[in-house]
């Protein structure tokens, strides 16, 4: 795996390194500086560009965020290693921008080598440390100084005054104790080498893109009794799947699809335990091979489970912001930016909801419809099919809308006997002002469509079992080059396809007959 990925790297570009033969000749000392914890945050959350609509999936947050942190830094004259600790774990280091340091940045670094047991051992190869061995009887701890000779392939080999031994192969309790963390950091850290002309204290801004965020709009439409209008409300649901929280952050979400380039190869260290692999441990009472294999694979799958559990999983700790906290929309280039007006805390592994809009008495039309495909498709001849029901309106001010509607998820409720009952759930795409809004209400068993016919003549029978008149649309998807030559009703065209629009009185049936001609 590693060589394959790096093969890609190398073919994209090449690097020549000339290593110093003698250690640093003329380098000035570098001061270690730590940036203060952030004093202010800003988080702008973008949707998953490959999720067309629907709500946020807390287990797989495919969106991202632009995080901006304001931090106070104190620099000495000369070169400083300035560390920004506690950045989001989803940081994309190549997107980091540091401003406010008078442009004296020599280089930026992100070290992915995290603090883990195996990383500690790897960093200690060739170094002196202490092996602690506990006598099982007396409990007395014997501390043996020594050197790690190897940690190859997960086995640790150790040299002490007594000779050479393998760690934890004897069966008695043994462990290594380390001094210091060898520069390994537990928290994701970005470091910057800054050349300061003089000692100074300044406010630096660090901004970067981080994955493991997402947001969507969640609409609730409540239909009126007569079904001719609806009350539309919506929440912005945003989620942070990172292990890092952003207290009192200025929070924005951006609607519209932004381009993202993927396929980046970036070193990542997930850490690992000290495995302490030993020599073959077969005994005279060995298990049969098959059973051994079964035990091994069980062990493997167990380990896989533990690793998943350790990976960041979005917990569904939902928080609903009640009481007047709303978002305000503004234009950002060709995108829509929604700003939460007061700072809010975007905690780690949290989803949060803020009110997006509330519109009452939006006029809607309920329409039933079906789309029939190719003439000789046997599926269409297979008896009756339920028609779909849609709610339609146009996103205009006259219809009490006239605002950009970001994509998301719609729940449609109707009020019966004083109760709000869920009718259907569907998805909504990004809708600009003046666009037609169509909310799918699912199939309706009360309106059935039956098709019969042979060759080029077709019969479609529509039955209405409802106690009210309905609007019905029969859409046809004809094969390439085909057209309607005769029909018993008026044919219109919508989006280049033939459509029959009819009104069915209560408890009636209607018949549509049409003839097609054309190739082949």
């Amino acid at each position, binding site marked *: 795996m590693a060589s394959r990925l790096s093969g890609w790297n190398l073919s994209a570009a090449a690097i020549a390194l000339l*290593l110093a033969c003698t250690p*640093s000749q003329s380098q000035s000392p570098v001061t270690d500086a730590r940036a203060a914890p952030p004093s202010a945050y800003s988080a702008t959350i973008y949707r998953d560009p490959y999720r067309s609509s629907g709500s946020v999936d807390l287990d797989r947050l495919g969106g991202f965020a632009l995080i901006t942190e304001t931090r106070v830094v104190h620099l000495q004259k000369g070169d400083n290693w300035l560390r920004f600790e506690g950045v989001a774990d989803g940081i994309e*280091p190549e997107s980091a921008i540091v401003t406010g340091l008078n442009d004296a940045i020599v280089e930026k*670094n992100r070290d992915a080598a995290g603090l883990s047991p195996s990383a500690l051992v790897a960093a200690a190869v060739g170094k002196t440390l202490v092996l602690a061995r506990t006598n099982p009887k007396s409990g007395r701890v014997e501390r043996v100084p020594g050197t790690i000779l190897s940690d190859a392939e997960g086995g640790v080999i150790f040299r002490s005054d007594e000779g050479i031994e393998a760690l934890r192969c004897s069966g008695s309790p043994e462990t290594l104790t380390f001094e210091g963390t060898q520069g390994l950091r537990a928290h994701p850290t970005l470091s910057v080498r800054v050349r300061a002309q003089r000692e100074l204290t300044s406010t630096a801004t660090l901004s970067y893109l981080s994955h493991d965020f997402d947001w969507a709009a969640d609409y609730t439409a409540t239909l009126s009794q007569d079904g001719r209008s609806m009350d539309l409300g919506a929440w912005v649901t945003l989620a942070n799947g990172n292990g890092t929280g952003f207290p009192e952050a200025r929070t924005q979400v951006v609607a519209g699809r932004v381009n993202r380039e993927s396929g980046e190869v970036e*070193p990542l260290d997930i850490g690992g335990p000290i495995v302490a692999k030993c020599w*073959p441990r077969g005994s005279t009472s060995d298990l049969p091979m098959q059973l051994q294999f079964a035990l091994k694979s069980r062990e493997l799958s167990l380990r896989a489970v533990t690793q998943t559990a350790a990976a960041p999983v979005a917990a569904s700790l939902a928080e609903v912001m009640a009481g007047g906290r709303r978002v305000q929309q503004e234009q950002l280039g060709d995108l829509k930016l929604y700003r939460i007006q007061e700072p809010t805390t975007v905690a780690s592994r949290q989803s949060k909801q803020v009110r997006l809009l509330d519109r009452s008495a939006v006029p809607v039309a309920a329409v039933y419809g079906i789309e029939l495909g190719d003439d000789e498709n046997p599926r269409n001849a297979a008896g009756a099919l339920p028609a779909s029901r849609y709610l339609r309106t146009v996103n205009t001010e006259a219809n009490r809308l006239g605002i950009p509607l970001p994509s998301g998820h719609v729940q449609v409720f109707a009020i019966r006997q004083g109760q709000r009952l869920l009718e259907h759930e569907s998805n909504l795409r990004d809708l600009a002002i003046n666009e037609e809004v169509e909310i799918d209400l699912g199939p309706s068993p009360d309106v059935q469509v039956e098709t019969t016919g042979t060759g080029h003549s077709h019969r479609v029978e529509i039955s209405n079992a409802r106690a009210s008149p309905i609007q019905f649309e029969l859409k046809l998807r004809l094969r390439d*080059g085909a057209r309607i030559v005769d029909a018993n009703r008026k044919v219109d065209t919508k989006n280049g396809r033939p459509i029959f629009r009819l009104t069915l009185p209560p408890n009636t049936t209607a018949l549509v007959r049409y003839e097609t001609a054309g190739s082949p």
Partner: protein
Amino acid sequence: MKGGRQRIDFEGVSAQIRPETVTLAAADIAIVEQNFDFDLLTPAKLMEKAVGREVTIVRVNPATGAETREQAEVLATNGGVVLKIGQRIEVLRDDGLPVRVIFDKVPDNLRARPTLSVTIDSAHPGMRPASLSYLTPGLGWKADYVALYDEAAGKIDVQGWITLTNSSGTAYENAQTLLVAGSPTQVSSPGPTTWRQPSRRPALEQAGTESGSRERLGDFYLYPLPERTTIANLQTKQVGFLDVHGVAAEHGYEFRNHWLGTTDQPQSAKSIYRFSTSAHAGLGDQLPAGILRFYMRDKRGEPQFIGESRIDHTPMGSTLSLVTGDAFDVKVQAVVEKRTRVNEHDWKTDMRYELSNASPRPLTVTLLQDGLWGDSRIDTESQKSTRRSADTAEWNVSIPANGRTVLTAGFDTRF
């Protein structure tokens, strides 16, 4: 070095070194042979190499805690370790009780990391500088660009960063670093060679013809890092190489419809930013391949991300046109209105394109219809098109503020 024939070990070379590419150069030496030992020092290997040799075993009595030491000969390590202690044969830790095994030495060519060793013949003893060079995978670099677009002025500020990544397993301390932009062909590189996603839309609109002052290596450009630096393992390092302010940039929209593309819902047009990399009116540099991230200031003046786009190695003087994403307010609905077969060889297709603009300013969309290969003609059209290529017709359609424009075209094709 001593005089004469001797072996020199080089530790700390890249863990992914390609040993066949090693060159050692120093005064007054001759290379006898080069070896790359990749037999790693692990407990199992250590035991395997001890077959037929004596080891010390230490038993701890679980009841008393007392230690007893014995010498044992390792007879075999197949599946389990078989020991000969005095005249007895035992399987190591067969009873599950703790037994420590102490080895007195590490076999010669077992190492913690793969190690390169070179046998040389030195003409005379003494210290002299030597240089070792080799190729290694696991190191890579690309460019990352930050572009801040000023909508009112129609200008961008661009910063370029070189992003270096090291996953070779080794840290390079205090290294003088030189980056080569271009793709040197490697014949024998293991694994798949170049793999890139085919780009759907070319970013390079016009290839440049200007030369810069950067150093070249053959047809590649060199980007030396200004000073020595340490490249740690698993590190991502960025060093700036470009900082340009106030370059003119155009913002536009583009929509490409595929042949017979017809939709029930309007689709967003793409947001396009176009700028030059020439010396007099552009960025004034060659751009190594990488990702350009666009930012724009929001109403409060904070920069916000508005999308990113990949560019290839771009010569100076080129025109780049990059997609940042979909425009929320600018949509196009393409519909096949009518399609008739005139005779066996002729089809007539009537297309209707409805372009809508929900923003309060007028704008122009570049509408492209592709798939016009072969003997294809546009018979009728409501606005004059230009043929961008044999395959693609192009219309520049203006849409009024908060308005719509409908374009129709009739195509005469053989398919």
